[in-house]
Structures are given as C-alpha cells and as structure tokens.
C-alpha cells in the first residue's frame, strides 16, 4: 500500500534540519553545505536562502508566532533571522557553545531558545536579552537533540551517551537568574569557567535519566498530549517511554529499521509514529500496537531528519540529496452530491449534509472497511436505492456497496452488517441497479447488479486507471494520456480526448457539460465529448463544482477560480488552505475542508457573471451588473477589448484617451470625433482621418484634415468627392499661403489652366508655362509668356509642337460632396438605449438561476432512474386546438429603432426624451389588446391579422379607440403646466420597464356579460339587436387580455358560443326575410328553420328554435319532421304546457308520418352550416373556416370577408392567440 503521498521534493545538499512554518506553506531546511533554505512547498519555489553559517547547519526552527528563524551550525553559532522578505537578515548571533550545535528550538511562549551541542551541554537562551540563561549539563557525550515540552516546563534530550534525559526547568521561569545579570557574558564570551555552570544547575535539574538504548540516541521528543517520550537511536530501535510525576520507564520498542534511526516523531493527531533512518526508509508505526504499518523506501539516500507540521497532515524528511514533503493519507474526503444533499465520509463515517438546513447527520459507519488507517477514497451515491459504493485503496483496492438507512438512527449501522464487498480500484454506480468496478491489474471492468453478481465484463479499450460515470449507460475511462467516453451497452468508444490522467469528473447541473480534472488541467467537454476546451493551471487543482448557470468553479491549492465553458477563467478568491468544493449555490460555495468538515465560502460572482452575460449576449444582465456593481475596472475593459467588444467597453470608459482608442477600434466615428476634439492632438486627428476614410465618412475626414491643416490631402479629398467650390476655396487659401506647389496642385485639381500658368510663371518656369498655354490653346497668353521671357517665336523653333491637351479634371458623375458613403447603421445599441432612457426605477435583477430554481439537476440521470418506473404522462395542452403557440418571437420585429434621434440636438444634453411607457408596452406584449392600449394601432392590426386573419378593421374602431382612451389618464400637479399623461398598468405592483403592461380595458367577464345580454335579446325576439350584440362580443373578444390557461379555455368557449348564436340568429333573420320577401319559397323557409335548430344554443334558446321549427314545419304539413323536432324538444324537458303541445305534435306526426315539402335537411348525418349561404356542409365535404371563430364556409368563399363577424378573411392563415401569461 502506497499511501505516502509526496507533495514536494527538492534536490540539494544533505539536509540535516527541517522546520515547518506553523501557518504559511513554508519549510526551512538546514543544509550540510552551510546554507539554510526557505521553501514554499505548496508553490514549489525557493523563497529565500540564509547563508552566513560556516560549515554544516544542523539545527533549524521557526518561531511559533513570529517571523523568526533560528539556526545552529558546526561553527558553534546560533543565529536568529528575521524571515520577512522585506527585512530578511540575521538579527543576532548567540555565542557560547564550544562545539557543533545539533538542534535549536523556540519555546512556545517564553522568549527562549534551546540548543544542544557536541560540547555535551544544553543551553537555554533568552532571545530578548540575547543571553544564555541556563546551561544544562549532565550528558557525558554529544547531545544530539534537545526539545522543550509543548506545555510543561520540561526538556527532553538525547545523547550519544546512550541516555535520554528529562530536565525540569521550572526554576527558570520562577526567578530568572539572568535578572541579576549574574551569569551574563556568555553571549560574547567563549565560555565562562566551569564554576558558572553550577550556578545554572540550581535552576534546571535532571528529572529522569532514561537508559535502555544500546547505542547513542539521535533524537527524543515528548508526545504532544500524553506523558510519553519517543527516542530514536543508533541501536536501530525506537523506544517509547512513559513518565509519571515521579518516574519514567520504558514501555516498548519498535524494531524494524536495519540501520541507525535518525529521527522518530509522534503523529500530531493520530496514534502513529513516523520514523526515518540511515537504512533509507521512512516508516510508520501504530503507536498502540507498536507494529509497522508502512514503509517508504528510497533508493540511495539516507534519511537524517523528520519534521511534522503542527496542524496539517504534512511531514518533511531530509536525506542525503534533498528533502521531501509528504502526507500519510489522502485528505480529500470521499463525497458525492445529490440535489441539495452532500454525502461524504468523515472519520470513517458516511454522513449526509443538507445544504439548505445545514443538518449534518452520521448515517453509516465504515470503520471495518479496509485498513483502519486509510479513509475511503471515493463514494458513489444511488438515489434510487439510497445506496452508496465506497472504495478504499488499502488491501490493494476494495469496494463496498451498502444501503443507507432511511433516516438517521440512534445507533449508526455498520457497513459490515450487510455491505457487499469486492476488490477493485474504482467502483461507481452506472444505473439505478448497476455498478461498474474496475480492476486495474487485470484491466477488466465488471458491471455488477445490486446483489453483487457480475452481469457483464468489459475489456476497456485503453489502459484504464480509473472509471467515472459518463452519462446514461456510459463510462468515462481515465488512462495516462487520454480520457475515453465509453458506451457500456454497445461496448465501444464514443469519443476520446487527449488529457493528462483525469482524477476527478464533475457533471454540470443539467448534465450537458462535464469537467474532467487532472492534476494541472481541466478539460471542459460537452456530454458527447465533441467539443472541449482546456485550462491549464500551474498550481495543483483540487476540486470543482458547477454553478447552475454553467460556470465551473474550481479550487486549486490556493485559489477558488471560475472557468467559462469556452475556456476563460479567472480568480474568485484566494484560499489559505485547500478546500474541496462540493456545490455552488448563488454566491455561496459549499466545500469540505481538509478534516472533511462542511463549510461555506461566500464570494462575489460579478466578474464571471458579467463575462457569461457577455458571452451569451445577455445585455440586460450586463446592464444590471454595470449598474449595481463597482467591479468594473481596467481589467474588464481590457477583457472586453480583447474579446472584441470595444463598443461595449466604450460605455464604461470616461477617460477621453481610452474612449478615443476604443471608438477608433469599433469604428464609432461620432464618439471618436467627440473625443478627438477634446484631446485635440495631431496624431489623433490623423488616426481619425484614416479610420473615417476607411468607413467612407469623408465629412469627418475633411474635418480631421482641416484640424491638422493638411492642405494637400484636403485638396485631394475635395477632388475625389467632386467638391469644386471647396477646391476653389483651397486655391484661395493656397494663394494666401503663397505655397506655389499647393497652388499648382489646386489649380490642377480644379482644372484651372490659367491658374496653373500663372503659378508656373510666378515661379519662373516660363517654358512650362508657355507649353501649358500653348497646349491649351491659349496662344495669346503663350505669346505673353514668351515676351516676358524675352524670347520670340523664332527662338523656340526647336521646341516640338504638341497637340492641344485634352486633359481635363474628371467630370462629377454623382455628386458625393454632401453624402457620406452609406454605412449600415449600427442601430441603437442596447446600452445606448438603456443608459439613455434611464429607466433606473425598475432595474430588475434578471433572473439568474443558480441553486434556487434549477436545483441540482446534476444527477438528472440519477433522478431519472429514481422514477424509472413512473409512467411518463404527456401533458396534453388543452389549447392545442387553437394554436396558442407563443409566437412572441415575431414581435421583436416591431421594435426597431422606433425613435430617431431627430429631436436630440434641440434638447441638448440631459434632456433627451426617454422611452415612452407605451413603447415599453408594445415591446413587452405580443397581444393586440396591449398594442392598442399603447396606441400602436398599426402593430395591433398586424397582430390581429396574423393571429386571427382580421382584415376589416373599420368595425373595430370604437373598440380600439375606447381601449386606448381608457389606458391613459391625466393629472396636472404643477400649476399652469400641461397635464402629465399617466399610463395605467395592468399590474400596479410591477414597475420594471421590461415587464410593465397596459391595463386590461375589458375583462373577459364583462364581455361575457355582454354575451348574456345578447341571449336576452334572443329570448326577447330582438334578433337584429342580438345579431349586433353577438358581433360586438366577437369584436371585443379579439382584444381581451388573458392571463391563464383556464381563461384561455373560457375565452375559446365564449368565442364559440357567440359564433353559434350569431350564426343561428343570422339564419333566423334570413328565414324571416325569405318568408317576407318570397312567401312561395316554403322549402327554403323550412330548411332555414331546421338549420337554426342545428346551432349549439342553450336549452331555453334551443326550445325557441325547435318550437319555431315545429310551427313552420307543421304549417307546411311536414308532419314527420315536425314530430322529430318535437321529440328533440321533449328531451330538453320544457315546462308542462309545452310538453303537452309537443306530445300532440308527435302524435300528429305518428298519425301522418310524411312530409309535404321535400327539404335538404338530413338530421342523421352530422353537418356544419355555411355561414354565407346557410346551407349544410355535410361531414366529409370540403369546407373553409373563419380563422377566428372557426365558422365553416363552402370552399368557394375562401378569401372573402366572413359575413358573420365581418372582420376576418375566410380561410386566411392564422397563428392563433399567443399565450403570453
């Protein structure tokens, strides 16, 4: 069993002395070459070196509370050092010993230093007065070690004289002999007379002399709490001594070293002894049984010294060629998180810890599992069975499967009672009733069921060191160079990622991402391993946990850090000691410390939340963070810039120079211009000009050139843009400046031949001037020049003649002087808007679910097992029929950059109008009613048209106007000012700009009461009014705000009822018209009466319809039909009088079962009635429908206006009402 875990190793000269710093990760090492090293063993760096001793240094100690180091060497000197980096130096040297100094030590509370020497004395020094205050004599050979008792006034020493002595130094404390200054002088002197020694002896006396070793004793120390002493000697034996008030005796010996034992220590916490010797071994012994537990062997190096950390499970051993720092046992507690509960092992007990309540309960003892000295290594939890599998590394790897008790019992169950064991290095649950066990030696993975019998054996495709849960039916196999996602069922590799050996695997809450952690790297992969990113840490990575937003929080030896899925990472906080993260909830990290005690760390997640929001383009959250946090500094700006978001960074920066840089980078010319004005330096203008030129904004280019007086470029720009008038101005400027070159250029650009000639003449370039004039046909001018030059035609005979120049400045095809190149408008940035509109009132924290809502779906798969057997019930959405799809997405389009910044200039800074509440309403709602209330009639109509196929809006005008009118109210708080328009909200408790919605002007209830009014009209035979009312109801229903599925259902019922009544009433009205206008058309009359009874009416109204039909049919002598209607009437249980009439009618029908008039009415085949022709559409015949009411029509009416509601286009596609609640 190789439980000794080396944490740090250094190569150096022989190490003879070692001392741990009590709080910092520092270790002092005294070297045989005279150097004293100070190592940071956690970071693995040499912090400091102290090199003033001549010859080997053997003794070293660090002060328990102050930054002091004491060393003693073969130069007889004891030196005390200040180890603070800023003033590291030797504070003083204690002289007095007459031979090599072997060990030194600080007293735990007094300002004393104890030292022992080959001069056979032990000396105690006062480090304040720097005097020797006691010399303990009695040993008759080299004193090899001397140690204070950790609490009492005792000293234990070991000597080559084969004895261990215990000294009582209580006299020193009572009356310091030094007070009188009596024995002074030792500090400087080489050694007083032997007489002086006697003086000291009165204060320190030998209490016990422990004899038993057969050779010289190298080391002896007190037990920290028990009255025990341990000694290590050249007789290869470690002896344990017990002492009482009056005597001390040998208890036992530990034999096993086969050469001199250099040192032996009590374990600070456990009942263990650790020893080392010249046989090149470090050994661990059981203090109670005095048996060897383990041995750590080194190939070539003899061990000389051991040191134990006072608080941590850390030891250091010095050997011939350096030192090692090691742990005896793993500290990482075995744990597993399920939802809000942590299952973990402490002191060989499985415990559960509830993150919410903090309840920490012991559930199961695993004391008898594996070696008693070794804690379990891993724990895998199965929620379905409430079982755990533990593994332990002792006995070459064991696992044990045990059920946890349902509740904590008084008597904690021991796993040995019903635990199922086996051997294997790695064991985990892979399904609710299966677990996998890895046997490293045979390289086999066995899948076992809960009764521990093998159901499947897998030969892993790679040399596997450890297995992890890999998602449903998968394993993650960790090999030395890669990590493999392996499908158990198909027995094949799904994916493989190269990685250093993966030690821990942590799945994200939703099981979508997995963190594969090795010593120095974390690989974040998705669940198929198809994408992954790698983080490298120089410091050892300890543990990690997923935040519920998909951020991985991990701990290294000294930091808690975060990592985003794309690989960005950063520090959250620093740690004094490593912790093992178990769960991240909001701002709290739950973790286990080194002694496996649950604790929490609160941290500020702002930085990574911001970065995450940035990655996800969640501007609202970013804005919220910007407003509420103060974190944003240079680092965030740099981050934004580096990540390609300069335009966002621009919003945070005040500094003009930085703003300019950012503005140039993101091409925001306005800001760049603004800032350039403020900075007003030539180089800024140049850069602005370059950038503006790139973007084709030549107006800004022009300004920039003007600012820098860059005349040449300016002229050329004017030429390029065809700005002739400006070019001529440039000419004048050039004239004024008297720069001939510039004048020439400008004349050339402007096509001003005369100008050019005059420049040439002015500078005396007569030949050129002459030729220019000549070639441009200006003969007279040419003559003049010739004359001016004092020549005649004859003189220039030899000059060849050139044809007339046809060069002209290019004509302006399209005038671009006033136009910039069109650029895609960046639009109004979210931040511009949000920061400008200043709706600060309701800066709502965006829903950032972490730990609260999406509770530990981490084990979603496990949960799934837990409810494996439950039948999955598909919730059938009621509204399926009328497509309540939330097609909110479509409405985003409507937002657009609604308001152009036309007014801004007028108003000046600070008074830019903000966003109107009505705009927010439009933005926040996909409901037409809300758009109407906001006065956005156009979008409202588009919505109605899209949702219900409404095309004829004229009828809706009163509804629109009254809703709009009812959604705004006015109040004048200030005398003589126009009233404020106030907007009435649906939910007065909601004031966040992203959630406000207008008041619902009409409730479903009020519309339903209107419907009831329509019913009354029907009963009262006011059919025209009824028809109008039903139409109005249907119109009103279009603009109702619904808040729940139940309401939506009721709404649909109301629509259907209104439609049926409208249809019925319309049929009856038509029947009356027919009866009136075409009295001969009995057939139609009868048909319509029959159809009326087919509408879905309430029983009282159905009675009316039926009675009307009975009457009409009876009158037409269609007795059979009339009887049918009468039977239907009876089913409705009308009052007795009507019953009697109906029975008569039935009787009449029975007597005479025939129909005089043949009508198109087949009551036995289901049919719908066309709302336009009032003729039946039998089931199976083609029909088209009203997109709103679903009323049926004959196919030929597709595309026509629905005659019932008179609102919609028949057969138009419609999205249905969006479910906005």
């Amino acid at each position: 069993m190789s439980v000794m875990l080396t944490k740090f190793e250094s190569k150096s000269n022989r190490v003879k002395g070692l001392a741990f710093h009590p709080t910092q990760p520092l270790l002092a090492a005294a070297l045989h070459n005279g150097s004293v090293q100070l190592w940071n063993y956690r970071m693995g760096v040499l912090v400091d070196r102290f090199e003033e001793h001549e010859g080997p240094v053997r003794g070293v100690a660090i002060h328990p509370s102050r930054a002091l180091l004491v060393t003693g060497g073969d130069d007889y000197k004891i030196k005390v050092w200040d180890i603070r980096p800023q003033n590291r130096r030797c504070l003083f040297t204690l002289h007095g010993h007459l031979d090599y100094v072997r060990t030194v030590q600080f007293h735990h509370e007094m300002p004393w230093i104890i030292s022992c020497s080959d001069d056979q004395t032990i000396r105690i020094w006062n480090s304040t007065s720097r005097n020797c205050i006691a010399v303990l004599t009695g040993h008759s050979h080299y004193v090899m070690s001397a140690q204070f008792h950790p609490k009492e006034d005792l000293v234990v020493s070991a000597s080559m004289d084969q004895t261990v002595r215990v000294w009582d130094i209580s006299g020193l404390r009572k009356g310091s002999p030094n007070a009188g200054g009596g024995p002074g002088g030792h500090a400087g002197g080489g050694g007083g007379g032997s007489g002086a020694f006697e003086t000291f002896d009165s204060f320190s006396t030998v209490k016990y002399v422990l004899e038993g070793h057969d050779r010289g004793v190298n080391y002896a120390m007190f037990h920290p709490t028990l009255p025990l002493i341990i000694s290590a000697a050249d007789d290869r034996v470690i002896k344990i001594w017990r002492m009482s008030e009056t005597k001390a005796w040998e208890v036992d010996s530990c034999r096993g070293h086969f050469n001199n034992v250099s040192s032996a220590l009590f374990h600070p916490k456990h009942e263990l002894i650790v020893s080392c010797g010249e046989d090149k071994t470090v050994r661990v012994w059981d203090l109670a049984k005095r048996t060897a537990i383990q041995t750590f062997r080194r190939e070539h190096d003899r061990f000389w010294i051991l040191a134990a950390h006072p608080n941590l499970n850390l030891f250091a051993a010095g050997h011939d060629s350096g030192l090692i720092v090691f742990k005896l046992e793993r500290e990482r507690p075995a744990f597993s998180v399920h939802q809000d509960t942590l299952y973990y092992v402490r002191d060989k007990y499985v415990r559960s810890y509830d993150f919410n309540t903090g309840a920490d309960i012991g559930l199961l003892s695993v004391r008898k599992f594996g070696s008693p000295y070794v804690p379990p290594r891993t724990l895998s939890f199965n929620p379905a069975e409430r079982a755990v599998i533990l593994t332990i590394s002792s006995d070459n790897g064991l696992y044990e499967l045990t059920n946890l008790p349902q509740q904590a019992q008084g008597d904690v169950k021991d796993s040995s009672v019903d635990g199922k064991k086996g051997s294997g290095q790695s064991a985990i649950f892979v399904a609710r009733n299966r677990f996998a066990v890895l046997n490293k030696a045979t390289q086999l993975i066995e899948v076992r069921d809960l009764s521990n019998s093998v159901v499947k054996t897998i030969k892993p495709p790679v040399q596997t060191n450890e297995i992890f849960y890999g998602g449903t039916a998968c394993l993650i196999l960790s090999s030395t160079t890669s990590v493999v996602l392996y499908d158990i069922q198909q027995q094949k590799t799904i994916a493989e990622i190269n990685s250093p050996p993966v030690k821990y695997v942590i799945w994200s809450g939703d099981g979508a991402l997995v963190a594969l952690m090795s010593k120095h790297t974390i690989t974040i992969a998705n669940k198929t391993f198809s994408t992954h990113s790698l983080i490298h840490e120089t410091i050892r990575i300890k543990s990690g946990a997923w935040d519920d937003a998909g951020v991985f929080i991990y701990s290294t030896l000294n930091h808690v850090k975060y990592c985003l899925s794309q690989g960005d990472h950063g520090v959250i906080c620093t740690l004094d000691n490593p912790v093992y993260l178990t769960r991240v909830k909001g701002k709290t990290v739950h973790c286990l410390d080194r002694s496996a005690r649950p604790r929490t760390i609160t941290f500020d997640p702002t930085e990574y939340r911001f970065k995450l929001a940035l990655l996800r383009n969640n501007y609202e959250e970013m804005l919220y963070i910007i407003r509420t946090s103060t974190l944003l500094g240079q680092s965030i700006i740099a981050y934004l810039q580096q990540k390609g978001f300069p335009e966002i960074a621009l919003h945070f920066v005040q500094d003009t120079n930085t703003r300019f840089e950012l503005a140039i980078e993101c091409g925001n010319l306005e800001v760049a211009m603004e800032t350039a004005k403020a900075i007003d330096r030539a180089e800024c203008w140049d850069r602005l000009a370059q950038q503006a030129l790139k973007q084709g904004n030549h107006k800004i280019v022009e300004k920039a050139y003007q600012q820098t007086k860059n005349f040449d470029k300016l002229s050329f720009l004017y030429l390029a843009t065809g700005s002739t008038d400006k070019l001529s101005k440039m000419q004048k400027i050039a004239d004024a400046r008297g720069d001939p070159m510039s004048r020439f250029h400008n004349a050339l650009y402007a096509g001003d031949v005369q100008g050019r000639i005059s420049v040439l003449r002015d500078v005396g370039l007569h030949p050129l001037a002459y030729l220019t004039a000549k070639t441009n046909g200006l003969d007279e001018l040419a003559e003049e020049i010739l004359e001016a030059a004092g020549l005649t035609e004859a003189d220039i005979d030899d000059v060849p003649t050139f044809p007339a120049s046809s060069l002209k400045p290019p004509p302006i095809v399209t005038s671009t002087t006033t136009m910039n190149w069109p650029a895609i408008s960046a639009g109004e940035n979210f931040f511009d808007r949000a920061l400008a509109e200043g709706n600060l009132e309701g800066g709502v924290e965006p829903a950032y679910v972490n730990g609260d809502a999406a509770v530990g779906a981490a084990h979603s798969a496990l949960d799934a097992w837990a409810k494996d057997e439950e039948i999955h019930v598909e919730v059938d959405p009621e509204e399926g029929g009328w497509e309540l799809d939330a097609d909110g997405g479509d409405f985003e389009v409507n937002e657009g950059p609604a308001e152009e910044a036309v007014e801004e200039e007028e108003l000046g800074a600070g008074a830019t109008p903000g966003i109107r509440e009505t705009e927010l309403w439009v933005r926040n709602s996909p409901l037409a009613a809300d758009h109407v209330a906001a006065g956005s009639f156009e979008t409202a109509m588009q919505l109605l048209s899209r949702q219900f196929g409404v095309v004829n809006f004229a009828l809706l005008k009163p509804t629109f106007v009254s809703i709009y009118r009812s959604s705004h109210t006015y109040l004048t708080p200030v005398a003589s000012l126009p009233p404020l328009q106030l907007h009435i909200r649906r939910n007065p408790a909601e004031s966040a700009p992203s959630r406000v919605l207008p008041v619902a002007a009409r409730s479903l209830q009020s519309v339903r009461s209107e419907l009831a009014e329509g019913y009354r009209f029907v009963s009262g035979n006011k059919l025209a009014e009824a028809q109008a009312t039903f139409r109005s109801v249907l119109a009103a229903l279009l603009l109702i705000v619904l808040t729940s599925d139940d309401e939506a259902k009721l709404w649909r019922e109301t629509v259907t009822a209104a439609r049926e009544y409208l249809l019925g009433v319309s049929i009856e009205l038509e029947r009356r018209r027919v009866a009136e206008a075409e009295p001969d058309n009995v057939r139609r009359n009868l048909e319509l009466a029959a159809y009326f009874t087919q509408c879905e009416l309430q029983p009282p109204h159905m009675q009316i319809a039926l009675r009307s039909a009975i009457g009409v049919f009876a009158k037409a002598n269609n007795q059979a039909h009339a009887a049918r209607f009468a039977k239907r009437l009876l089913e409705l249980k009308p009052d007795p009088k009507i019953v009697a009439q109906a029975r008569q009618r039935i009787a009449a029908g029975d007597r005479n079962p025939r129909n005089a008039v043949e009508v198109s009415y087949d009551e036995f085949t289901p049919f719908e009635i066309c709302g336009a022709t009032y003729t039946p559409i039998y089931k199976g015949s083609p029909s088209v429908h009203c997109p709103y009411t679903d009323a049926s029509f004959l196919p030929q009416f597709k595309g026509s206006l629905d005659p019932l509601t008179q609102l919609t286009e028949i057969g138009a596609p419609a999205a249905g009402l969006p479910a906005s609640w």
Partner: protein
Amino acid sequence: MDSSELYHIKQQFVLGAYKTLVNLTLPDPNAPTYTPTLLYQARAHIALDNPKSALELLPTDSENVAVKAAASLAKYVSASQGADKDAIDASLEELRDLAVEIEGDDSEGNEEEKALVRVLAGTAFARAGEIEEALETLGVDTEDLEAVFVIVHIYLSINRPDLAKKQFERSKRWAEDDLLLQLIESTIGLVTGKDGYSNTSSFYTEQLGNPSLTSPHILTARGVTRILKNEIQEAKSDLDESLAQQKGDTETTAALVVAAGLGALKKTEAEELWTRFVSEHPEHPLVVDVSNKESHFDECASKFEVPPLASA
C-alpha cells in the same frame, strides 16, 4: 421664514386649492405679505385658466420683477388661449428679458422674487415646448423647490423619470421634509409606479386628512392614483366626490372618463360621458390625443384590403 398665513397660502397653492386662493381677501397693501399673497392669487387665477382675472389683479406699474413675470405669464396664457401668435411671442420675450434682467448684479428684487421669476418664465417656456430653454432658465442645480418641481414635471413629461428622480434626490439634501418635496416625490411615483403607487397614494390620503385645507384637486389626484392602482370603483367615488365639490372640473371629468372606460360605468354611459367631454373640452390633451389616434386608426386600417363579403 414665511409668516403662517403666507405658509398656509403657499400650501394651498401647492396642493392645487386654487379656488380657495382666488376667493381670498388680500391683506393690507402695506403689509409685507401683500405682494406674495397677490402673486399666489394671480398664479391661482392663471392656473385656473383665467389669465384675464390675473391681469386685472396685478398692478401694471409695479417695479417688482415677480409681479411683472406673473403678468407676462398671464399674458402668455391668455394669448395661447386665443392662439394669438404675436402676443405669444411678445409675452415670451418679456419673460426672457426678465430672466436676463434678474441675472444682472444690479437687478432689483430679493432672491425669492428672482426664483419666482425663473419658475414663471420656466413654466411659460415649458408650455411653449421650449424645454431646453425652460430647463436652462430654471437651472438644474437650483435650490428653489418650486423650480425643482417644474423641472421634475418637465423631465417626467419627456419620459425621463430617472432625471426627475435625480433632481428629487438632490433636493432631499437641502429641502428637508417640505410639503412640496413630498408632492414632488409622489408625482414621480405617479409616473414610475414604484411600489405599486403606495407612496403617492398615501401622500394624497394624508393630505386629504389635512385639516387646514380642502382641495378637490387632491381628491382628483387620489382618484387618478387609484385608477393607476386599478382600483376603479374607489377611484370613481373619489372623482364623484371631487366633482360634487367643483362642478364640471375638466381634469376630474377627464379622469372619470377614463375610469368609466375601465368599467366604472356601463359601456353606453361611458360613451355618453366621453361624447359630452369631447364637446365640452375639445382642447383637453386626452381629446386631442384620442382624435389623433382615431385618424391614425383610419390610416392604418386603410392599409388592409377588405375582400368582398361572402354571400350566397
């Protein structure tokens, strides 16, 4: 510190009890409170849209800048009622001159009067839509609460409750717990709807219980607040009571129209009330806005092609 009568008058003015102020008997012309009282009375007249009375009240020969400013405001309001463009410009010019005059070192008048000039000028500019000028005249760093109130009103009217809030927060530092400050806070609350209008609502309720004054305006304000709180029936009762105290008050009626539309009255009654309101107050912003929307509706509706009616 103002005398108690003057304090009382100011309170009434702030809370909109203009009618009471108008009927107030002026103190003795030599009393120190005479001019301030006169000014409040004149401003009450203007607030009641009765600038003529204000002009009658104000002496034309006064050297007092505040009196002059009040007269100019009255002229402005009167001119804007008649839509007399020249007169409007003239009165605005007068106010501009006054505003410039008080900036001078040798100007007459004490600080309070100067502040009042700024408030009156700012009011006129704001009415005329010259928001920037108004803000500049009032001075966004002013320490005059009345000016702050006007500024806040302007900010609110351009949908910048954040700036309004800033002004309020700034004023809190020096204005202690002035009644006007509370009113400012409650007005901001009306627009932002913070905490479900609770602050605004309790402020008005508290002022209704104030024994030293009665103003139907407060009732109306609470009615409006209650509309905003979706307490329509309660709102209606406030508004009815307010109307009983001041028959035909425009603002109250306007609020009642809205409440009626939200179910306080039956549909037909609501329509009737609306029709009456439209005919009586064709200039009210609600009427103007709604009639704009009506034409907007026609315009939008015309974009949809209405297919022929399906008929047999």
